[in-house]
């Protein structure tokens, strides 16, 4: 009895808010929940660039809001819910750890559309999206294989989730196609963004003989260390060339702009549907920063590989591929399927690390 009353009251409040929303004309409110600071120059920064692109694409018709540095854990659900309660009709939650909170809030606000980055749970009003960053990792792996003199490449990793493991593997496969003796040393820093920890990891890897540093964390700190120590590195998520003008070879650039604009438009014209998007170099969700600080022939090879990955002629996980124990996981002439890639929890041959299980 009491719960019915509460529900009725809640429905009345919601209806009232909806009416207010209508009264405020056709401006569509779009919310963004970020895991890091917008000034990280990496992951969150690129989502925020796309948020601004949405505002620019629909002048006067869209109003965006964001909350930055939202902790994954009990706080996330409140922030996402508050976003929905404040009249946002489309909400992007841009970190894996926001998955279950987003699912819970999506259930409470069926009229609001939700978009969750890198997760796997979908409902009628909750889509998921991610980019095939591993295609970019194959390109930088190739470059590292051509340029490393020591044959030891350092890799700074965040959390052992499939996304990160897949990146290490794509990088290692491409690296060893060029230099079969090369090895990848991995340091797990257990954070997406901590310039201090990331820099320490870069120093440790260089001290262990790495002359190229790759990273799957969000700050430019490892590149700055590389610049100072005279080794090469790759930018993460955005073009970080101004932090390491002599050191950055290229960067894997996240480009969410077209997707965010398309999804906003879909909500505006009523064609929005819940779906799973996983796009790579071809539609431009993954872009490469200009190839610099390398000989012309290596640059030409990188550009050629990029074109082949886009056309589908080359797949980053083309067989034959062996895992760490030497067992063949894909035969020659085939490539790993999306399902295996999405749940990847093993290393390929050549990774000088043991995966925690």
């Amino acid at each position, binding site marked *: 009895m009491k719960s019915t009353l509460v529900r009725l009251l809640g429905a009345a409040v919601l209806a009232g808010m909806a009416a207010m929303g209508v009264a405020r004309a056709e401006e569509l409110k779009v919310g963004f929940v970020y895991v890091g600071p917008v000034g990280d120059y990496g992951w969150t920064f690129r989502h925020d660039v796309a948020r601004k692109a949405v505002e620019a694409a629909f002048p006067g018709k869209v109003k965006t809001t964001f909350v930055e540095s939202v902790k994954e854990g009990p*706080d996330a659900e409140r922030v996402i819910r508050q976003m929905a309660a404040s009249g946002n009709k489309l909400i992007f939650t841009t970190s894996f750890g926001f998955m279950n909170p987003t699912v819970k809030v999506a259930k409470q606000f069926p009229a609001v559309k939700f978009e969750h980055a890198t997760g796997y749970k979908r409902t009628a009003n909750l889509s998921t999206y991610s980019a095939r960053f591993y295609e970019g990792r194959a390109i930088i792996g190739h470059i590292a294989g051509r340029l490393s003199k020591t044959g030891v490449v350092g890799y700074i990793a965040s959390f052992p989730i499939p996304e990160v493991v897949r990146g290490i593997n794509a990088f290692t496969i491409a690296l060893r196609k060029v230099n079969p003796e090369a090895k990848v040393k991995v340091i797990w820093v*257990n954070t997406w963004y901590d310039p201090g920890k990331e820099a320490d990891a870069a120093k440790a890897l260089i001290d262990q003989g790495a002359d190229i540093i790759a990273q799957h964390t969000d700050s430019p700190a490892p590149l700055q260390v590389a610049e100072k120590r005279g080794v090469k590195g790759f930018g993460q998520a955005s073009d970080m060339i101004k932090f390491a003008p002599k050191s950055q070879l290229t960067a894997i650039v996240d480009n969410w702009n077209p997707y965010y604009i398309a999804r906003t438009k879909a909500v505006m014209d009523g064609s929005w549907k819940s779906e799973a998007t996983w796009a790579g170099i071809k539609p431009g969700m993954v872009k490469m920063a200009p190839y610099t600080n390398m000989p012309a022939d290596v640059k030409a090879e990188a550009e050629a590989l990029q074109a082949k990955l886009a056309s589908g002629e080359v797949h980053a996980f083309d067989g034959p591929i062996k895992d760490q124990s030497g067992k063949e996981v894909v035969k020659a002439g085939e490539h790993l399927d999306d399902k295996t890639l999405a749940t990847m929890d093993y290393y390929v041959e050549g990774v000088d690390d043991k995966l925690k299980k």
Partner: protein
Amino acid sequence: MIMLERRRETSRVMKFASPLLALVLTVISGAALFGLLGFDPLEALYQFFIAPVMTSYGIAELLLKATPLILIGVGLAIGYRANVWNIGAEGQLIIGAIAGGAIGLALHGVDSVLVLPLMIAGGILGGMAWAAIPALLRTHFNASELLTSLMLTYVAELLLTWAVNGPLKDPDGFSFPESKMFHDSASMPLLLEGTRLHGGFLAALIVVLLGWFFISRSLPGYEVRVTGSAPHAARFAGFSQTVTIWMTLLAGGALAGLAGLFEVAGPVGQLVPKISPGYGFTAIIVAFLGRLHPVGILFAGLLVALSYLGGEMAQITLNMPLAVTGVFQGLLLFFLLGVDILLTHRIRIGHIKPRSAS
């Protein structure tokens, strides 16, 4: 010339006036800060202090957010009164969450009313076990609990990382480092339909009462206070320092572990790599803000929770940057703690008159 002069005795007026004075100072300087940055000061203050509690859902969120702060704050205050400096409540919280959460996962699908009490016991014992390590190191090797309890926090974080990447990982979770969602029988009962407020808040209120009784009315509480304020007298009276250290650390660990279990069995609903946004550390501020008194801690916990909710609200509704909301939170804490000096000191304006030579 403005000078601070020591009072002969603690001011009774200031005991109540100082928090109000701090609030006034915060509001004035906050309004100035917001105005300078181009925000409407009144609107900003409204978003910080009023808007978060304008709905029943908002009030429920406030109480939910304050629950771990109050629980841990009371536990820490008992220790701080005895000069036992446990600053590792964050670690004790994590271990409590792992221990209680593991029990819930082991009994996944078991529909019994006993599941939750078992998890709660696991949370309390887990927190106590983690706090027992600094107690042992202090009483047997005289190692400072300040350092050992803090350092064990990092160990606890890594243990949690290991647990959710290994034995407690959801087998159907696409290799992501998270446990299964807890079964209904392993989740805290909700106090208010449609919100996330759960029974843990009632537990926090009971803990405030018990904490007050322990500190003010019980003999062990008296021993704790004497050990803290007059260690020599305590020794003379035959109070054992070893007992005090064990008792206060275990109490702090138990409450932190309980808070951790409430988080995972409540709003989070599963074990994830990051359970607490630093409640164990924030609770240290809450304990001092509440002047180490359980009732004071209750209010301090609510106020700090409100400042977090207000910060989020200002970001969402006014697009205020996180850095600004953080500075405002800092101002609030700074004034609240800073103004407390007026309890023991008074401000004198003008020249100091030389004391009469008599």
